[in-house]
């Protein structure tokens, strides 16, 4: 293919440049002031982005400002904000290593999912409880035979009087041990040739009879992972989420909320700040300065891409390819930061160290591989991005 012209075309992926408005900057100032007061340095063990502590009281404090379920309309207890408002608040929480686990999934995923697919009754029942951080959610997707390929889900939901009977086992479910509810993807259809059509989503109270949760210790060895066994769990009709048989579409939609946000590039930010805090003189020497310079430039530009995705969501667009490109790049960067900083210091990392930097480093090394796996592996993300490029 030899062309007699250069291209001069725009790219198939589009990241519209955007800046924060004065109102959004005001929100940012508010979040920063709140966090300075609520979480003074040294008063809490900082997390690695969304991989953080669980503190319901802290989440409820945030809720008082309307900073949870930001985009929930006021009639359901939210502040009727935007995806960019949520971006602004979330990035401040994550970069502070704040304990966000209690409200994380409900805020990021369940609330938008309910807004889009929930019934009026479900919205009235769950959204105010999410916005006030009273209830927490987790996500029941993966199974032993269904990781990246969710069409292989086998957990079944069969019709019964007044509802559905759920049977099966979900694994690698983050935060299942401490959550109140989960949104589960089940098989309701039996047609083996149409694996997409037979999937449905349900809202399940994790304290229902027949639900057994057991921790799957993580290698680090925290216990936020769990197996959830469902043995004839009765789910009433009013807990069917969306349309029976539409679970695949709904779930794909849900995954879009997971991608491209600050949680996909800020997980190891705390290490950089802690490094400069604990090694102020070393940080200025040429080699460390180069490493920090490269890292900061990348944060700045990745953030602009990520913000552009949030703005695009507010325009009701579906930036699936853009989100996938950002997440693929952002999560690899999160891992690169760990190695780049570790190479600057001659330390043997200990989780028990008195140094915040060393504790974060230890945890980051151990949990780092999960960054490019959770919420869609980078291999899957590349194929999602490619669909956007080729179409």
């Amino acid at each position, binding site marked *: *293919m*030899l*062309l*007699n*012209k*250069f*291209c*001069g*075309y*725009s*790219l*198939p*992926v589009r*990241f*519209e*440049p*955007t*800046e*924060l408005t004065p109102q959004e900057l005001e929100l*940012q100032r508010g979040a920063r002031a709140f966090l300075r007061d609520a979480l003074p340095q040294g008063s809490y063990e900082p997390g690695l982005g969304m991989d953080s502590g669980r503190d319901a009281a802290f989440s409820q404090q945030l809720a008082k400002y309307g900073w949870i379920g930001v985009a929930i309309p006021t009639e359901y207890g939210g502040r009727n904000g935007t995806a960019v408002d949520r971006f602004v608040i979330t*990035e401040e929480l994550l*970069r502070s290593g704040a304990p966000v686990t209690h409200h994380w999934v409900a805020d990021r995923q369940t609330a938008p999912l309910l807004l889009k697919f929930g019934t009026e009754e479900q919205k009235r029942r769950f959204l105010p409880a999410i916005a006030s951080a009273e209830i927490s959610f987790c996500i029941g997707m993966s199974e032993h035979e269904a990781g990246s390929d969710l069409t292989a889900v086998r957990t079944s939901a069969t019709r019964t009087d007044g509802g559905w009977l759920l049977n099966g086992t979900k694994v690698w479910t983050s935060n299942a041990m401490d959550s109140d509810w989960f949104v589960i993807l089940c098989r309701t259809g039996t047609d083996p040739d149409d694996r997409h059509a037979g999937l449905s989503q349900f809202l399940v109270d994790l304290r229902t009879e027949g639900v057994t949760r057991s921790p799957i210790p993580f290698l680090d060895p925290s216990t936020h992972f769990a197996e959830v066994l469902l043995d004839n769990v009765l789910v009433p009709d009013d807990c069917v989420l969306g349309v029976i048989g539409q679970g695949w579409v709904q779930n794909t939609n849900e995954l879009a909320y997971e991608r491209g946000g600050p949680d996909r590039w800020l997980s190891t*930010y705390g290490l*950089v*700040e*802690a490094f*400069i*805090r604990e090694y*102020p003189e070393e*940080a*200025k020497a*040429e080699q*460390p*300065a*180069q*490493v*920090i*310079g*490269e890292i*900061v*430039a*990348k*944060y*700045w*530009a*990745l*953030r*602009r*891409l990520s913000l*552009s995705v949030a703005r695009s969501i507010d325009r009701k667009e579906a930036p699936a390819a*853009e989100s996938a*490109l950002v997440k*693929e*790049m952002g999560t690899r960067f999160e891992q690169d930061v760990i190695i780049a900083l570790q190479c600057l210091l001659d330390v043997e990392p200990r989780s028990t160290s008195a140094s915040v930097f060393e504790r974060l480093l230890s945890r980051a090394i151990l949990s780092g591989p999960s960054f490019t796996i959770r919420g869609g592996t980078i291999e899957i993300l*590349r*194929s999602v*991005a*490619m669909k956007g*490029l*080729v179409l």
Partner: protein
Amino acid sequence: MTPTHAELNELEQTANTLFVDLCTPASAAAAETDGWHPRLWAAIDQAGFTDVSVPEERGGAGGTPAEALAILRAAGRSAAAVPLAETGLMAGQLLTAAGLDLPLGVRIVVPPAGADELVLEGDQLSGTARGLAWGRHASWIVVLLPRDGENLVAVLPGPALEMTTGVSVVADVNLAGEPRDDLTFDHVPVARKSLAPVGTDPGALQLLGAAGRAAMMAGALSSMADLTLRYTRQRKQFGKPVSSFQSVQQHLVTLHQQAALVSAAVDGMLTAISNGPAPFEIAAAKLLANQAAVAATRAAHQAHGAIGMTQEYQLHQFSRRLWSWRAEYGNDRYWSSRLGSGVASAGPDALYPTITAGSAAMTP
């Protein structure tokens, strides 16, 4: 005074139309042989692109540096073989800052890294200026000379003017075949000169040069991504388009990520430049562009295979420019250590505010 992203985009698209029409792989090859693309330069001149950021009272179009940079991104997208950054943005800003009127014709600024050997004695300049883009075609040479703690902007006649004497040219080219000449001055009288205001120093000139290169690189990267995507969708091997192979798709993803990242950085740089000094954004944009030049050209060449290594196919017009521009106006080490020592000195509490607000957070 501050153009919006939409306005900048509109201007860039207008410029794009001009460049796409006049810059073809054939014209780029011809410009490389002859060292000049006269039709393109005439069109650029006529469109007023060389004077965009110069105030009207100095003979310019009264626009902003951001607008000049938006045009440079379009120029990079078409691999335009012309000294637009030098004549327009750099000479324009330097002369305007010093309160000098803009002389007509090709104006080439001596890069800070190439001005060390120049000596001004009275009103006469001697010594060698190194690495001047299209120096042989310059009607005027603009140089910033640090002197006794102050900076002097001087304009000298260039080799392209018939009246010029005492200037000898050693012609050379960068890796993309773009002229990068050394000019030796032998007691050449200065045509105009003026003291530059505080802040107009070699560091500021380096930033200006880097901003221009970053914008051009953003354009070149997006064209390279687009070209590679189109090629891999048409090229068939093993009976199907090579773009359907996952290992090739990985290169396409890398390319588009790098192009998007540098574009986002340049967009941020344009906003910051419109609002004030933008050392953070320029440094970050140039650094990211430099890094992308490596990662993206590697992916693009790998995805193209052998044809990408030939002169007849146009990929090299982008990859060779990216490799060249990467080394001009500050390499990776230069900008990363500047950025890093800046943020490390500002301390841990200033780190995130700098990531969100850039230069505005660093200069209270």
